[in-house]
């Protein structure tokens, strides 16, 4: 366990000196919620308070972005020569995978600290149970997305251009065709069909359910929790399998 923690801290330390990228992410969130969210909530009439709905959507988008970032990071490590080094250390492949996942979890926690706190404050009137359930659901979703991106990252060993194209396209589709920014019941039928395949639909509806949003505009929470858990377990399992069985350092000569 100590080597896992060492590895996580070794990778994170330079990112926190100073934590520019985290502060930038927080700032973007605050501007989005404070300016865009406040304005758009006056235009949207179908939902009680759209700025709350929007703030949760932004939190989900940050979670998704970070999951994608972890997959991309893994590929960059391979091409920069860090992956062969990590693979040569006296750490088992499963622990190495756990390190990558935990590091992603730590980054997610850092990245979401302010956005989630602000969102919870905007929503207000919450119980500890709902906040803990929301945080757990976010991490589950984050692991699921990270696992998905890690599994996809193996494409990048063949072609990083193809990987970038797929991830960019997938991000666009997964976020837009989901309930991240608008409730499922308001979606036109053809969009709703596509949204039913987006993991973010289930993640965002589940988190909104825990945070006390009107259940009539959300998907069934049991269904949502099953999909999010299945996504996390299956993609992390696939990622672990690929790391253990297939991953090889990119040979430089």
């Amino acid at each position, binding site marked *: 366990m100590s080597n896992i923690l060492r590895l996580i801290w070794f990778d994170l330390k330079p990112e926190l000196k100073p934590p520019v990228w985290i502060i930038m992410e927080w700032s973007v969130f605050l501007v989005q919620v404070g300016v865009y969210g406040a304005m758009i909530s006056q235009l949207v009439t179908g939902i009680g308070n759209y700025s709350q709905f929007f703030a949760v959507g932004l939190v989900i988008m940050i979670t998704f972005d970070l999951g994608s970032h972890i997959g991309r990071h893994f590929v960059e490590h391979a091409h920069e*020569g860090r992956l*062969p080094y990590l693979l040569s250390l006296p750490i088992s*492949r499963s622990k190495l995978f756990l390190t990558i996942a935990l590091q992603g979890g730590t980054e997610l926690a850092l990245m979401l600290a302010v956005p989630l706190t602000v969102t919870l404050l905007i929503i207000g009137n919450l119980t500890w149970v709902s906040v803990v359930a929301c945080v757990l659901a976010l991490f589950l979703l984050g692991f699921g997305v990270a696992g998905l991106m890690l599994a996809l990252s193996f494409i990048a060993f063949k072609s990083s251009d193809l990987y970038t194209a797929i991830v960019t396209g997938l991000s666009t589709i997964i976020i837009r065709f989901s309930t991240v920014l608008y409730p499922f019941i308001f979606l036109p039928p053809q969009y709703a069909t596509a949204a039913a395949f987006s993991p973010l639909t289930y993640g965002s509806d589940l988190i909104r359910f825990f945070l006390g949003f009107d259940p009539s505009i959300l998907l069934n929470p049991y269904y949502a929790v099953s999909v999010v858990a299945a996504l996390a377990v299956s993609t992390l399992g696939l990622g672990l399998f690929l790391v253990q069985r297939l991953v*090889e350092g990119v040979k430089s000569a």
Partner: protein
Amino acid sequence: MYAVETKDLTKRYGKTWALKNLDFTIDENEIMVLLGPNGSGKTTLLLILATVLKPTSGQAEVMGLDVSTQSTRVRQILGIAFQEARGFWRHKPADILRFHASVCGVPRAKRDTLIENLLRDLELWDARNKLFMHLSGGQTKRLEVAKVFVHRPKFAILDEPSSQVDLRGKRKIWAQIHKLQEEGSTILVATNEVREAEYLADRVTVLDKGKSVVCDTVRQLKDSITGGDIVELEIDSPEPQILKRALGQIDGTVKITNSSSNRFKAYVSMAESWVPKMTDTCYRSKARILSIRVTEPSLDDVFLHFTGRALRETSNE
């Protein structure tokens, strides 16, 4: 038991064979040098032994442990310095070594002293607090090999350990490698630098196109080239043609040429045993030796001899 043994080891990248049915051994506490041009399979072999790459087929064992099925245990006894040091752009050399030492289980009490001594010895002390991305090519290379020296593994793998490093730095790295051997480590070095191979090797394996062409000590490899030693002679002889014939009859002589009546060039095998016989022949022929210059073949010549191509040419391909 060999420290390292491969049997029928094969690695393919698509249609390219990086290693082809390689049988290869290293004895315990030996420095084995892999000599070959770029693309000969050296790095692939090192990465398979380090469990970074997986073999396509065949078997490889390190200290009796299979690299495919016991990879975590293999990694616990080996350390590798990669050909290119990359990946930790925003870290400092001292931090990189401290992290590496801690992950590899170097006791905390020894760690700082060991790292300081190494940084000083490899002339990285002044750069210890620079970011990795600001180091020169030579400094990053020295830092890469320093990882192995701080770890002091039972089996050390070094891929072109002194490339990009100046002569002074090279000697320091070579001295550290010898020190590691004195402490009991088995060492595998891949290089395409002839001088490095000659300086370090207990034995040399010549690799070409993924196959082991020949493996022996430097001395034996050089001696295995028939007529590889060149002895240039200046002899004052009353009858040079008779002397030339007599020299040609000495055991080990392959060819004698003469550029002038008293200057001879003899292509011989094992000059060290040929020269005494030559002096004896000259004495009996009443000839006076004015000068002798012996040139032995380089490992480049050895490579040329066994592969039909020069090492330097193929390295530049």
